[in-house]
């Protein structure tokens, strides 16, 4: 290769003919510095921003928020999307009828695409109206009439594009029409239209679509009148198409009426629910109930579209403040301001502390504040953290390995940012998630399960000794609060202070719950028939089995910690490591004895936590979400009463009773409610943690001038180490070069 380059160099005009390789190389080195300097200047000029800026220099002028995602969202179709990493996108694009107030706590529902809050009208079994305060048992049907806002328009989309004759531009497409179309941007013509009540009806019908597998179809079939029958009918239609060899053909849902949904006029529709189900309003705040226009569904149902992945699952279409303009989950996903957004204002009321913290400074200003949101794929936490510190991400979570770098405990035990972070203007927000992580007992197990006194006391003894305060301190950097029951803080029914403690595990003292001593656990264990960890019936030591999916060094120490907790009362805890697939399989079949799991609430209602222990929803019996297979007739009876009640002192009393039953039965070790810590740069404003609502990007604001200035200050290139390294290498190589030259010039040895 060197020869080839040298030969080329020799062809330069004026180069001495017949020059040797060594001379040529010397000349090349002597002249190459000019090229290097020129290239360097060109590159520096080309950058125009810090060298390490991962974004185009032109972005500096833009009102852009930079965020990251670690995993490709699987579904963006609102009928399927359920995970938090999916709803991060869909919640900005789709507008369901309702949304949560950004600032108010407890979480309060307000209209989103609805013009006003829908009022429930109750009917008895003979369709006679009932008063608003009718007994839940008397209610056979509930009808929600939803009036939607007028003048709301969809984002630009080719499905709406019309030709001069008034027909759709992209309709009945032939395969040649799609030959050059690989993304939605390849369709040149775009259009829009006004939001219509039929779009909401269409989306509810889509919940039952046999090819879309909506995760809430089963649940909603129990409530929305006629949805189950509708799903069965569509299934037959789909099977008919498949038999005819047309299994991917679009099904026009408009042809098939759904009894439980009635379109009154262009701006009003009604949903008929079986019985009373006040939690239904929370579902109306999720993208599952956002409008989807039939023509968009038809557009994406054109033959050949799915083969090119031109689906609604990939290209969401909504009326929200943002639209997805680039969907390349291999690298970047971009949301941009929807030019047709109907407009909304920043709230002017909230919690008392909101005004003091400046959260009401933008009250009444039009939303959204940010023009564009760039989500970059960042799978690893270390580069993500480094880029946050450089100012290239506007916010960041805190991984356990960077926790000490970011957070320290203040004088009163509160978490504050470290001095290094504070100097960078980074601020910390903390919030308790509406989640719970627990250790469950399989109630079908012969040793730890069942309602016998023996098993109950064994579970209570274990509940006392597994010290979740210590767990949080060691493994979570204190990010969480020990749970007293399944209910997370902020959920109706949750009681703080002495009234809320789990009396089986805690005593109240020194202003807080104090875990009972190990002696109490030993006593309970002895009463259970296992004195000092020995089965009094067989004389054998008590061995329990813990199915775990956690792996790696950190998990190993955590699992050893669990074993030590059980050892406090001489119970041997055997670990049964398994992958997540097998773990799920074991849970489904009831083959696990003790396991760990978690739950993040769909909506802020106690029903959404307590159903995890509702007997009829047992995992083994009915594939429900009750993984512990817990069944207590009294608890189930109270659950049935409580679930459809409005929040009231009566409901609170029932919940108190239910929690007391759970605490005594101890089907779970209640574990902890995680606390989320998030860091924000000084230029990132209007952030208030909200663990239920996801459509919050429209409220956030960026000071891009401050960001540009700070980024430039923090990212000045340090170039001198490069020549220094070159010099050091040259110095190290110098003796070798001298030896080389000496050998080259030396005479042959005898």
């Amino acid at each position, binding site marked *: 290769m060197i020869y080839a380059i040298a030969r080329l160099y020799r062809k330069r005009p004026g180069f001495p003919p017949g020059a040797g390789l060594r001379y040529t190389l010397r000349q090349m080195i002597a002249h190459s510095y000019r090229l290097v300097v020129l290239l360097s200047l060109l590159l520096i000029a080309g950058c125009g921003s810090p060298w390490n800026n991962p974004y185009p220099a032109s972005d500096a002028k833009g009102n852009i928020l930079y965020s990251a995602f670690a995993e490709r969202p699987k579904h963006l179709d609102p009928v399927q999307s359920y995970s938090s990493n999916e709803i991060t996108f869909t919640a900005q694009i789709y507008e369901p009828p309702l949304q949560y107030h950004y600032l108010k706590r407890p979480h309060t529902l307000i209209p989103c695409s609805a013009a006003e809050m829908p009022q429930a009208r109750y009917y008895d079994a003979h369709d006679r109206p009932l008063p608003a305060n009718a007994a839940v048992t008397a209610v056979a049907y509930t009808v929600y009439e939803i009036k939607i806002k007028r003048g709301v328009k969809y984002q630009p989309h080719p499905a709406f594009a019309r030709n001069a004759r008034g027909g759709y531009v992209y309709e009945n497409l032939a395969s040649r029409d799609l030959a050059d179309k690989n993304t939605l941007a390849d369709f040149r013509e775009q259009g829009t239209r006004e939001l219509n009540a039929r779009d909401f009806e269409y989306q509810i019908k889509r919940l039952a679509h046999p090819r879309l597998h909506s995760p809430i179809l089963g649940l909603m079939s129990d409530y929305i009148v006629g949805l189950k029958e509708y799903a069965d009918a569509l299934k037959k239609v789909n099977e008919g198409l498949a038999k005819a060899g047309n299994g991917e053909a679009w099904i026009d849902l408009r042809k098939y009426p759904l009894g439980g949904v009635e379109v009154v006029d262009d701006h009003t529709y009604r949903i008929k629910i079986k019985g009373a189900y006040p939690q239904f309003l929370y579902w109306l705040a999720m993208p599952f109930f956002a409008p989807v226009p039939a023509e968009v569904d038809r557009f994406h149902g054109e033959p050949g579209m799915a083969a090119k992945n031109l689906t609604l699952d990939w290209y969401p279409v909504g009326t929200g403040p943002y639209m997805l303009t680039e969907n390349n989950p291999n690298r970047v996903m971009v949301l941009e301001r929807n030019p047709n957004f109907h407009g909304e204002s920043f709230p002017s009321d909230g919690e008392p502390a909101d005004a003091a913290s400046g959260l009401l400074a933008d009250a009444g200003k039009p939303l959204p504040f940010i023009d564009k949101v760039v989500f970059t794929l960042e799978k690893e936490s270390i580069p993500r953290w480094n880029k946050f510190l450089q100012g290239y991400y506007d916010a960041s979570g805190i991984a356990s390995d960077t926790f000490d770098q970011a957070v320290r405990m203040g004088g009163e035990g509160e978490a504050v940012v470290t001095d290094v972070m504070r100097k960078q203007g980074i601020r910390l927000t903390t919030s308790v998630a509406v989640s719970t992580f627990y250790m469950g007992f399989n109630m079908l197990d012969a040793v730890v399960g069942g309602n016998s006194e023996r098993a109950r006391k064994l579970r209570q003894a274990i509940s006392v000794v597994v010290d979740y305060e210590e767990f949080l301190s060691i493994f979570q950097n204190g990010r969480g609060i020990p749970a007293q029951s399944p209910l997370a803080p902020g959920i109706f029914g949750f009681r703080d202070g002495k009234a809320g403690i789990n009396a089986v595990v805690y005593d109240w003292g020194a202003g807080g719950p104090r875990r009972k001593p190990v002696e109490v656990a030993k006593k309970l264990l002895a009463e259970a028939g296992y004195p000092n960890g020995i089965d009094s019936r067989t004389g054998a030591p008590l061995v329990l089995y813990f199915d775990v999916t956690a792996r790696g060094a950190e998990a190993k120490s955590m699992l050893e910690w669990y074993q030590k907790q059980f050892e406090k009362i001489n119970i041997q805890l055997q670990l049964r490591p398994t992958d997540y697939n097998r773990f799920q399989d074991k849970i489904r079949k009831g083959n696990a004895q003790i396991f760990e799991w978690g739950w993040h609430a769909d909506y802020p209602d106690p029903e959404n936590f307590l159903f995890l222990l509702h007997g009829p929803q047992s995992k083994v019996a009915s594939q429900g*979400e009750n993984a512990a297979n817990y069944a207590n007739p009294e608890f189930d009876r109270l659950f049935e009463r409580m679930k459809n009640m409005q929040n009231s002192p009566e409901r609170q009393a029932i919940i108190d009773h239910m929690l007391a039953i759970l605490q005594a039965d101890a089907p779970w070790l209640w574990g902890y409610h995680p606390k989320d810590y998030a860091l924000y740069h000084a230029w990132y404003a209007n952030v208030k943690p909200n663990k239920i609502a996801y459509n919050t990007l429209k409220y956030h604001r960026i000071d891009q001038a401050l960001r540009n200035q700070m980024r430039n200050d923090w990212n000045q290139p340090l170039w001198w180490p490069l020549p220094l390294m070159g010099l050091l290498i040259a110095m190290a190589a110098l003796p070798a070069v001298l*030896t080389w030259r000496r050998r080259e010039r030396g005479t042959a040895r005898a």
Partner: protein
Amino acid sequence: MIRYIIRRILYAIPILLGVNIITFALFFLVNTPDDMARMQLGAKRVTPDAIERWKQERGYDKPLIYNDKESGIGRIVQTVFFDKSLRMFAFEFGRADDGRDIAREIRMRMGPSLAVAVPAFFVGLLIYLTLGLGFAFFRATYVDFWGVVACVVAMSISSMFYIIGGQYVIGKLWNLVPVSGFSGGFDAWRFVVLPAAIGVLGSFGASTRLYRTFFLEEIGRDYVRTARAKGLSEVAILFRHVLKNAMIPILTGVVVAIPFLFIGGLITESFFGIPGLGSYTIDAINSQDFAVVRSMVFIGSLLYVAGLLLTDISYTLVDPRVRLS
């Protein structure tokens, strides 16, 4: 040679079939179609009915390898294995579980993988060969000693250290290039330079030591002594004679690696956010996407077979004594 190449291509068919069978068996030993459905449908509120329908739509409701409900050839054809694996011999990769066209995805991702792997490969090769020759030239001197020490040290350090350290020092501390990310067009160089440099550094120890060993074997031979006696310069001896004669063992390792440049680096791409085929494979394994896993394994084995064939052919180019028959 043509007959030899044809024969090798025919040999490749049972090899690829075997690789397919092993991949299929390993994958379905760990994952069942039910697991795949659950992975795609999510963890919350998934009904058995939805799982059944998901499998039905994608053909995973059939028996895996043998369908005893069918008769004749249907026993083999009406199976998941036939549907999913054998079609690849016609280069029909189909769609991933998320709906994306795998062939298009591979075409799109090949560029970023090559953008990192090709410079790292060729620059690395140049550096390793030059240093290997240099150490061989300075054999038994302090240069050789400290060079080998540096190689052993470099070999002992985990590639993760190079990646994380490189990102921290070059990207975060010196602010010279982006810590991670990727961009198309000319701007890509800013994102490629660090992972490529780390790729070079990561293989420096092992490769340089290997090439040094090859060159040491050659440098003591009679033809080198003769060349010196003729008065040839050391540069000419090393680059014109020693290098050429050490080519056979070098090519054995180098040519077979060239097709794998397409596959990309699994960890490097993940850490640097390079949207290449390496990260595609890792993502597919994590999301239990059999369609992508089988396709990538098939392409990997195809490239490996191609690499071996190219290696054999390259022998004939550097050593006229080698004849393929």
